[in-house]
């Protein structure tokens, strides 16, 4: 099993004729994902690596029937409308790759998705992957690189950084620990799906036996995760890596992602580490410690 995507998942790519979208379509197809259609207004009738292009999600769905997901890779000013279009045409899983979207627009998309029973991953993310089955988005890059970094196994990954998702997967793979599903959740201040919101899915997945997360200063997402783990007596050991320790000394400065800005005491790495450790989450000092900590925690449970 896996969460969110698998062998049968079908999806479309909105903005498919754009440079980045063309690449990610190629990468997903090469990996074996079912990209059934693409959407770019005014480009109906073309194709991208054999994937037919339509003017609207409505036209694509009329032709191909319902699809499970959509990857949105359009310029920032068009993202909100693209997401609304996917949601209103029955798409339930929407991955938003684009960055630099004002948080009000993200909040609006998330609100509509909530009303229609849809889920948004991102924005400013690389998507998600169930190794060997489906890759939805740019995660892992070209299929050959993706196969090198990601292997199938018991670890779920959630990461605020797209690049660090793959770095962690690569480190786990080198240590013989495969992954059930890895999700790049995005680096913005407001995102569609947080750690705590993915936890119940991993919890219900028999294949997943532990979780690795990549975390940063800024926001209250780790507090939410810590609360969830405690309140639900999670069966899954969680190991976190916390980057940006240097930012504790530089409040109000923005580094890296839009969501990475220390605005209050709870946003610092020190406060986050304390909170997570209190909830039984192990915090690694370095990426390469993650496999050992996971193995130790998995051994405890056995």
């Amino acid at each position, binding site marked *: 099993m896996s969460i969110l995507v698998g062998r049968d998942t079908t999806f479309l790519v909105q903005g498919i004729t754009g440079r980045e979208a063309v690449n990610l379509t190629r990468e997903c197809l090469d990996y074996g994902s079912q990209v059934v259609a693409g959407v770019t207004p005014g480009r109906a009738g073309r194709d991208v690596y054999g994937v037919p292009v339509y003017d609207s999600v409505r036209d694509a769905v009329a032709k191909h029937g319902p699809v499970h997901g959509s990857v949105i890779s359009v310029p920032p000013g068009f993202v909100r409308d693209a997401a609304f279009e996917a949601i209103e045409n029955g798409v339930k899983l929407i991955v938003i790759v684009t960055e630099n*979207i004002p*948080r009000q627009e993200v909040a609006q998309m998330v609100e509509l998705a909530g009303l229609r029973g849809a889920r948004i991953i991102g924005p400013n993310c690389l998507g998600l992957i169930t190794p060997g089955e489906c890759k939805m988005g740019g995660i892992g890059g070209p299929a050959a690189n993706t196969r090198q970094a990601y292997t199938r196994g018991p670890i779920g990954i959630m990461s605020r*950084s797209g*690049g660090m998702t793959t*770095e962690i997967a690569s480190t786990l793979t080198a240590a013989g620990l495969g992954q059930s599903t890895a999700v790049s959740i995005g680096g913005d201040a407001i995102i569609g799906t947080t750690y705590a919101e993915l936890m119940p899915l991993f919890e219900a997945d028999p294949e997943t036996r532990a979780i690795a997360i990549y975390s940063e200063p800024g926001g209250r997402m780790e507090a939410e995760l810590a609360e969830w783990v405690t309140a639900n007596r999670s069966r899954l050991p969680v190991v976190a890596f916390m980057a940006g320790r240097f930012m504790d000394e530089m409040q109000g400065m923005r580094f890296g992602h839009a969501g990475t800005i220390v605005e209050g005491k709870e946003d610092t790495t020190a406060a986050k580490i304390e909170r997570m450790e209190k909830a039984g989450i192990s915090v690694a000092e370095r*990426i390469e410690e993650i496999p050992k900590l996971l193995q130790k925690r998995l051994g405890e449970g056995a």
Partner: protein
Amino acid sequence: MRFYEYESKALFRRHGMPLPKSGLAREAADARRIASEIGGPVVLKSQVLSGGRMKAGAVRFAETPDQAAAHYEAIVPIVVNGQRCRAVLVEEKKGIAQEYFAAITWDGRRKCPVLVFSDMGGIDVEEVAEKHPEHVSKTHFSSLFPITPRIAKEAIGATGVTGDALNRLTPIVFELMRVFLAYDLTLAEINPLARLEDGRFVVLDGHIDMEAEARGKHKPLLAELAIAPEETRQAREATPFEIRGAEINAQDHRGVAGNVVGFDGDLGLVIGAGGGSLTLFDAVRKHGGRPANYCEIGGNPSVNKAKELTKLILSKPGVRKIAVMMNVVSNTRVDIVARGVIKGCIEAGKKPSEVIAIFRIPGAWEGEGFKILRKYGVDYCDRSVSMYEAAGKAVAKMRA
């Protein structure tokens, strides 16, 4: 992007909020003229992008125009938390009966805006919330559906405010909600919102933060407020080195090569964007290294962009070597970055093999990238060397 008080108030005025009579003084004579036009006691407030003005002595009261001019001269040189005075706001002084607090910000957990209202304004709201929770209300509202004054009324009423005060406060707080949504703000705050001795309500101070990502959407407003595009309004002013980094990034839409922040160390960093950069900056410091800068590169920049950025970092006084490091990359081509960085070193008159302490970018097109690095004798490593170890190698080279 934080607004100065006078800019926040200009925005409030556009939306019909009640404000004291005021004028912006850029020299002592302005302060004297504005004070005499107001014709009564005034308050002079330094315009800085920081709190703590009162403590620093950058807020003063004057009874006469001459006194206002004298205070102006006293206020201007005062630096508040590293922020220099941009101008002085001269405002009529009001007799206050009670202070309220109203602020709207984003709740990242609930993913919607939250209105915080208190009838104990003027002081630290978090402290009030702890000691007198019944005097602080928190009200979430939709950013998708139309809002109406009802939300403001309920939020105000929840703190026990009723009668005339409730009816007069409601439209002001509602307008604040509308301003928040209309301009993609991340914070819209009135503190204090004062009831005067004559029963009227007025906005005495305001604080506005606009989302940096939304600047393009609100160009007419920013132009009207005379906020220049190059004003970053971060916690500290951008240096010429940092501004040059932004220029290089803007020259070409392909990839990121910018977001440069200067430090006073000797090791220049060209490090992966986003999470990788935070991880590597930490690792360099953990090994005892002294970063000369924080600089992101990623998203497949052009050779030229990587080259210009490398030259910029090498031009920074004190920089002896650079480290080029990223996490395993997927959408950035290793060979293109390698080519750009090496070109940059050569154009800066340095030998790549000597000035590049370590090159650790594994991933897409790494075979081609490593070939180029080998040709120039640059020390590089693949993914079998962790980010932490690579940072250690770079720091060790600085000591050699």
